[in-house]
């Protein structure tokens, strides 16, 4: 059974919306309960009669979403903001890094560096858009770390850019806020928790293998966050914001675990 398109709405928003409806009237609650019972019965009947795949039924999906939320909290508790991810000698860094996106290379966004702006919004003091030259003028560092993909593959690369913590300080971000969200030129979006955003190895990067990011690697701006899985490292970033409202993400709203820590 296909999942409803409502799964495109962030999980927490959906949950809080349904909670409000239930609070609104006791009758609605009864209806919901009855529906749940009906679904449970048909789930059991379906399993007995056909033995077919029933894993998409909403009650099962609700439990799985709940456990995924629990896993977000577990990972936030495990996360040590001072613990550094392993680093490797430069010789271990892969030069021809794997291209990875939800579309083919022909659809890679072509961004003009001269007219590029990084737009800022949310809980920041200065919302002035940043040009590439202004970004390049920030203090830069390099890291050789392992990119771990949710699919199971991993690859060591060298990235260069500004520590994200430095950038957040420059723009006067409210670092007591919960989330930092990103929007990208390809329509991709993602978000991270503030503790991970402030981790010393979280960089806004301009270069891979000592060369300005090629378009396929996210030119001009890619978040490198080795404490998280690859899909939490957005490419082609055009906007970012600081918020207390759960922002979700492209894959996260399709069921990937939101925290996505490694």
């Amino acid at each position, binding site marked *: *059974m*296909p*999942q409803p*398109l409502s799964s495109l709405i962030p999980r927490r928003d959906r949950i809080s919306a349904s909670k409000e409806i239930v609070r609104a009237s006791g009758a609605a609650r009864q209806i919901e309960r009855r529906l749940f019972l009906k679904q449970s019965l048909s789930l059991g009947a379906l399993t007995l009669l056909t033995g077919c*795949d029933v*894993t*998409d039924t909403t009650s099962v*999906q609700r*439990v*799985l*979403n709940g*456990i*995924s939320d629990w*896993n977000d909290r577990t990972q936030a508790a*495990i*996360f*040590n903001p001072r*613990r550094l*991810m*392993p680093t490797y000698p430069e010789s271990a860094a892969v030069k021809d890094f794997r291209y990875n996106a*939800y579309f083919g290379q022909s659809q890679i966004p072509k961004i003009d560096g001269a007219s590029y702006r990084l737009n800022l919004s949310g809980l920041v003091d200065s919302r002035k858009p940043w040009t590439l030259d202004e970004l390049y003028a920030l203090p830069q560092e390099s890291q050789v770390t*392992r990119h*771990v*993909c*949710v*699919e*199971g*593959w*991993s690859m060591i690369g060298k990235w260069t850019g500004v520590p994200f913590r430095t950038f957040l300080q420059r723009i006067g971000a409210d670092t007591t806020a919960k989330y930092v969200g990103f929007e990208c030129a390809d329509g991709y979006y993602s978000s991270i928790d503030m503790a991970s955003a402030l981790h010393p190895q979280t960089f806004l990067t301009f270069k891979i293998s000592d060369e300005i990011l090629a378009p396929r690697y996210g030119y001009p701006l890619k978040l490198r966050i*080795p*404490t998280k899985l690859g899909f939490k490292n957005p490419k082609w970033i055009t906007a970012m914001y600081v918020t207390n409202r759960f922002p979700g993400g492209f*894959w996260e709203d*399709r*069921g*990937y*675990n939101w925290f996505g*820590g*490694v």
Partner: protein
Amino acid sequence: MTDITAGHLNRISNVIVHPLTVRITHWLNALAMIIMIMSGWRIYNSDPILPFSFPVWLTLGGSYEGSVDIHNEDGLAGALQWHFAGMWLLAINGAIYLAYGLLSGHFRRAFFPVGPAAVLRDTLAALQFRLPHRLGAYNAVQKTLYLGVLTAGVVMVLTGLAIWKPGQFQELTWLFGGFDVARVIHFLGMAAIVAFLIVHVALVVIVPKTLPPMITGRAPAHEAQGEH
């Protein structure tokens, strides 16, 4: 009077061969194994380390076609959700079973002693179909297989943690030879457990009288030996 006596005799002639804790954890573990193996196969399919993939119908993670049609992804999201939900069932149930086995003396009574000579003797007997099966008492081949699969289970949990958290648990990942090696060990552990399950289920089919005691806990006294 006669009936009561008969019932009484019937009761004492049935002895407990599998304690309640063992039975409950056994079946919960069976459920956890199905979830972990089938969802794991779909996760494997998203980046196979060997030149083959598992048939999609054998994998778990929601509707494959639905994921492809609506989300443009291979059902990985659902498989990951099942895997990282099943891990709690596996780990908590496994911890209860291990604690019970160690503290109650169940492991000591059921799996030990086991030595190379006995393993060799019983393996040869088994291959000649001359190995008798007493409910509740394990021969040397069974002891070896059960100890082996328990070890594989522990290795699976540890390598699972090593590849889930190669950053926060980096010492554990290092211990298993790094991320990529730990991933291969996680796959081999699965293969070992699946091999065990095939033998385990095949033997239950060949000797069906072993199945009811794992549900009721009881077996006729003349077929059973001791409590395990």
